[in-house]
C-alpha cells in the first residue's frame, strides 16, 4: 500500500483532528507567529545552512517545534507540508515528499524580480504546490502562472501587540523611522539609495539588521516602542507586495509615507490613511509636511490604525488560514 493511501485511510479512520501537524521551514518569524495562532502544530525542518528561527524578530510560539537538522520523525503524523518560498524550500519539500507523499501547500511571500534573466520567472512559477497561496492579489498576478487551487491570504497584524502607546506619542522629539533588514544589499527591492536621497539631512532613525548601518529591535516590545516614538514612518520599497513593517507601523497609529508600489496603493489611500507617491521629491515633501503638522499626523495615524483593524486583523488572517488548512487536509 502506498504511503499516500495509508495516510488517507488513517485520516479517515481517525476523523478530523483538532490540530494539524504541519511540516514547514523557518522563514519569516513574525508572519509565522501569526500563523501559529491558528492553533495547529508547526514542525520546522532544517538542514545545515538553512535559515533558523531568529528570536530577535519574534519569540518562538509554543506550538512551533524545530526538529534536529535533517530529521523527520515518522511517528509524528504530518497532515501536509507548508513551503514558504520558491527559492529552495519547495524543492526541499518535494524531495522530502518522495517519502511522505503529503499534500504540499506553497506560500510565496515575495515577488519575481524584474531584472531576472528571461525564463527565470517561468521556471520558478512552475514550482507549484497542490495548493498555492499568495499574500496579495498583486503578487499572484505578478507570478503570472496558472496555479492550481490558488488563494490569496492577506497579512494579519496583531493589533493588541502593535498598538498605540499614548505616552510615547506625546514625545515630539521623534524622528523619521524606517524598519528594514539587510537594507543595503536589498537596494533592488527595498530602495536604500532612494531612502538616502529622500531623507538626506533629515532626522532619521533606522531599525533592522543591516551590517554597519543599523541594528534590529531587541524584541517585539522594543519594536512597538520604536513605532510609537517616531513622528513619521517612511517606507521606500519598490518590489515588496506588502511590507509587514508598513502594516505594523500603521497598526501602531503611525503616520506613514510610502512609495506607491505593488499592493500599497490598494491599502493606502493618499491623504486619508497615509501619503504615497513614486516621486522622491514628493515623498520628501510629505515627510516634512507630516513632521510639521500635528493634526495631519494624528489624522493619518488614526485612519491607518482603522485600516489595519478592519482589513488586516489577526482574526481574519487566522480564519482564512484555518479554512485553507481544512481544505488541504481533507
Amino acid at each position, binding site marked *: 500500500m502506498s504511503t499516500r493511501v495509508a495516510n488517507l485511510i488513517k485520516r479517515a479512520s*481517525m476523523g478530523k483532528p483538532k490540530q494539524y501537524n504541519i511540516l514547514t521551514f523557518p522563514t519569516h518569524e513574525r508572519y509565522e507567529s501569526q500563523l501559529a495562532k491558528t492553533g495547529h502544530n508547526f514542525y520546522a525542518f532544517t538542514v545545515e545552512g538553512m535559515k533558523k528561527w531568529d528570536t530577535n524578530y519574534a519569540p518562538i510560539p*509554543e506550538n512551533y*517545534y524545530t*526538529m*534536529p*537538522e535533517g530529521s523527520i*520523525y515518522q*511517528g*509524528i503524523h504530518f497532515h501536509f507540508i507548508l513551503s514558504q518560498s520558491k527559492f529552495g524550500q519547495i524543492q526541499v519539500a518535494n524531495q522530502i515528499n518522495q517519502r511522505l507523499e503529503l499534500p504540499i501547500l506553497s506560500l510565496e511571500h515575495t515577488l519575481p524580480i524584474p531584472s531576472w534573466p528571461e525564463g527565470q520567472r517561468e521556471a520558478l512559477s512552475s514550482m507549484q504546490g497542490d495548493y498555492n497561496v499568495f499574500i496579495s492579489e498583486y503578487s499572484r498576478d505578478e507570478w503570472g502562472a496558472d496555479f492550481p487551487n490558488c488563494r490569496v491570504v492577506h497579512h494579519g497584524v496583531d493589533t493588541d501587540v502593535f498598538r498605540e502607546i499614548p505616552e510615547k506619542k506625546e514625545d515630539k522629539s521623534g524622528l523619521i523611522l524606517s524598519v528594514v533588514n539587510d537594507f543595503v544589499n536589498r537596494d533592488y527591492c527595498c530602495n536604500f539609495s532612494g531612502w538616502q536621497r529622500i531623507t538626506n539631512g533629515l532626522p532619521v532613525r533606522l531599525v533592522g539588521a543591516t551590517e554597519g548601518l543599523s541594528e534590529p529591535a531587541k524584541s517585539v516590545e522594543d519594536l512597538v516602542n520604536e513605532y510609537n516614538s517616531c513622528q513619521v514612518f517612511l517606507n521606500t520599497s519598490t518590489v515588496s507586495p506588502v511590507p509587514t513593517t508598513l502594516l505594523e507601523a500603521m497598526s501602531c497609529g503611525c503616520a506613514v509615507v510610502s512609495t506607491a508600489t505593488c499592493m500599497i496603493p490598494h491599502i493606502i489611500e493618499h491623504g486619508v490613511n497615509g501619503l504615497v507617491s513614486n516621486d522622491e521629491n514628493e515623498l520628501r515633501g510629505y515627510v516634512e509636511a507630516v513632521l510639521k503638522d500635528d493634526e495631519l499626523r494624528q489624522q493619518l495615524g488614526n485612519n491607518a490604525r482603522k485600516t489595519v483593524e478592519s482589513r488586516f486583523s489577526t482574526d481574519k488572517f487566522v480564519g482564512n488560514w484555518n479554512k485553507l488548512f481544512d481544505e488541504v487536509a481533507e
Partner: protein
Amino acid sequence: MKVHIVNKGEEHIEGYAKVEVDDNSFDMSDYSNNECSFILASDFVDMFPHHQLGEAISVLRTKMRMGSTAIIGGTDLRLLARSIMDGSLDTSTLNEVLYNKKSISNMREIEGVVEALGLNIVTTKLAGIHYEIECSRE
C-alpha cells in the same frame, strides 16, 4: 506537555520537553502523572535491556493524560533476522544494530505490553527493520 525521549547526548525536537535515557534509566519525575499530551519515543525499546521493557513502558503510561498518544518504537527482531538472511543489511549496519542497542524485541510482543497497560493501539508502522507503535490512552 509534549515529550521527546532520546538517548543521552542525542538532539531532540526544540519545543518538546527532552528526557534522556542514560545507562538503562530515565527520569520523568519532573512531570506529573497524567501530564503528557504526546510522548515521542521512537527508539525507546532499543534503549533498555529486555527484562526492563515492561517497567520502562509503564512509566510512560503513568505520565500520559486521557486522550493522549505515545509513539513507542524499536528494532524488530524478525525483520532484522530476515534482513540478515536476505542479505539486505550490510555488515557495518548489522554491527551497529547489534552492539549499540540494549535489546532487540519484536513488535507483537511490545504491542502486548502496551495493551496489557490498558493503552489502545492506534496504528503500527514498519520501515526497514524499525517499528513504531502509536498508542493512546482513552
